């Protein structure tokens, strides 16, 4: 029973490894959708429209990337939407109300996000609250706090023209910088998830938390870190959405978490944990935006847009389950 070197594996075998297939499917669905709309809906197939789709995906793409980490561990984060609003308000307070330099404001947003994430993580890891409950509670806390510290008043960034100037300008291929920010964030997330201990433990926790704990890993500490990373992305999303409106709006945010989770799930992240990918999530986010904008351009009334988006989410997850079952 002697073994020698690592046996070679065929390329095909690697490609057919389950996870990649789901990503390919999502990508395929996206391309199909784009082709469909381009062919059937007048005016859809134009550079400006494609750029609009990219722009519309920026906020959700960042939020969904962050929430992917958490879902892979088998948890969930319902506070990403209102958390995003909170961080944008914090940035507004720092950069506008307090008049501090803009970079400090950006840092403050990220820090505020990390704070929210850490609190979530601590509630879940130490106080043993189920993630659903803990993040639901933080949803309301951040919603309220955003309004409290801003006195229910939007904060405008007119005094800091560099803000929108940087994020919304289009120096590269005519695409607003927020899109590059989203992609950059996704790249960093990919590295974290696939090439670092943080990522390895994220998958391990989601696959079998008890086994991970028994293997000597400090599960509680890592959970807090992972939720904090999610929080950093919440902060980044706060920056992105504030730059689109050139203001921090304490009134919006609730509801954005649903799009974020939907994007992750469509992209192949399993709600039961242990599986997921950044690439899949970004594809999922694009899919949702494409669908919405395509239907908008086609003139479909609002109500139908929601119905169709919901059906797509159901369909995507169902297809994934079928595929897994047939593989068994």
């Amino acid at each position: 029973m002697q073994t020698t070197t690592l046996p070679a594996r065929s390329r095909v075998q690697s490609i057919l490894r389950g996870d990649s297939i789901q990503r390919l499917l999502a990508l395929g669905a996206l391309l199909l959708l784009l082709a469909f709309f381009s062919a059937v809906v007048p005016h859809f197939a134009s550079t400006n429209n494609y750029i609009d789709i990219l722009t519309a995906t920026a906020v959700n793409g960042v939020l969904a990337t962050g929430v992917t980490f958490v879902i892979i561990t088998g948890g969930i984060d319902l506070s990403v939407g209102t958390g995003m609003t909170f961080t944008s308000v914090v940035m507004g307070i720092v950069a506008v109300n307090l008049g501090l330099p803009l970079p400090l404001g950006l840092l403050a947003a990220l820090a505020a996000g990390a704070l929210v994430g850490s609190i979530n993580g601590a509630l879940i890891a130490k106080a043993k609250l189920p993630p659903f409950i803990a993040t639901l509670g933080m949803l309301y806390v951040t919603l309220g706090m955003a309004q409290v510290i801003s006195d229910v008043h939007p904060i405008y960034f007119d005094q800091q023209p560099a803000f929108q100037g940087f994020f919304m300008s289009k120096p590269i291929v005519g695409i607003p910088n927020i899109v590059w920010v989203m992609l950059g964030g996704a790249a960093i997330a990919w590295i974290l998830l696939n090439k670092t201990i943080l990522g390895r433990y994220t998958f391990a926790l989601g696959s079998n938390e008890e086994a991970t704990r028994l293997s000597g890993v400090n599960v509680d500490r890592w959970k807090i870190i992972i939720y904090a990373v999610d929080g950093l992305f919440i902060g980044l999303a706060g920056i992105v959405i504030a730059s689109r409106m050139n203001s921090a709006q304490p009134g919006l945010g609730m509801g954005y978490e649903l799009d974020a989770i939907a994007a992750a799930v469509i992209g192949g992240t399993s709600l039961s944990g242990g599986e997921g990918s950044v690439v899949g999530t970004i594809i999922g986010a694009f899919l949702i935006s494409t669908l919405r904008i395509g239907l908008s351009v086609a003139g479909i009334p609002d109500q139908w847009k929601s119905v169709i988006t919901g059906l797509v989410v159901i369909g995507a997850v169902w297809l994934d389950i079928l595929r897994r079952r047939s593989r068994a």
Partner: protein
Amino acid sequence: MKLTRITSLAAGSMTLALVVGACSGSATTAPAASTAPASAAAPASSAAGAASAYTPPTDAGKAKGKTIAIISKGEQHQFWQAVKKGALDEAAKLGVTATYQGPATESEVDKQLTMLQTALSNSPAAVCFAALDSKAAGALLQQAKDANIPVIGFDSGVDSTIPVTTVATDNTAAAAVAADHMASLIGNAGTVGVIVHDQTSQTGITRRDGFLAQMAAKYPNIKVLPPQYGAGDAVKSADIAKAMMTANPDLKGFFGANEGSIKGVLNALKETGNEGKIVAIGYDSGQQQIDAITSGVEAGAITQNPIGIGSKCVDAAVDAINGKALPEKIDTGFSWFDKTNINNPEIQAVLYK
């Protein structure tokens, strides 16, 4: 194999949905025949005194020291903060106590009803209410009536016979004025888009219908696209506006029926580089709109008198408590403002930031 069956099913239902949607979308819901008091050609403003023959009280009388509960539609926009200021200042002046609250967003019908319920259980002397959904509030209003608590409607008011009066802007007339300005700015011909905040509140319904009716009645060469709804969320409204621009490259103008909607339009114009190329007309004020009108990016807007709405509804409440008869509507007036008159004192008085 099973997978192909599912895929074709999904594709099939999507196509079906698209077809159905397209069909229903094109047959635009004809707006309810609005009894728009025919506005004369492009009035600059409707003076606050025109419709209401109403004299506010100078003394609280029986209402002194009593509590008036005010439930508004939300706190999302500065508009509501201005209403609040007007109400609370007037209450302080008259020596009555006023409480003011509203749900976080204008789509939370249920939350607003809960607030109303709570307010009623504290037995206020009167209630001022701006319904997110008039019909849904029916039972609670009846409850108020049975308890002899007078109900004053404001802003959207309440579509019911129970309120003793409604303190509001004549939104139908105001929207018609907006339509007139839009028409003259685009040369009475072309395609325009409308972005509204919702379809269930009085303001949403009347502003949309007022605009559409005026266009249909007087400007046959103007094509109005089916109205789109952005829930007053500036980001969502921006994306919708961009989609409309994509679908209609020859679009000439946008009407945003509330502050959030027009903010979305302005953002969309900025992002697509169409500032100045498409006529934008909005509603209410707010810092962003004020700046946009001053710079010329926005052609103009209809401003209500939020402070007036707030103070008059407290006035009406006091009168109701004292048993005075009240007119059915108290019109707090609206004004059209643009670059030319934005700095006039009477306009400045009703703008809010």
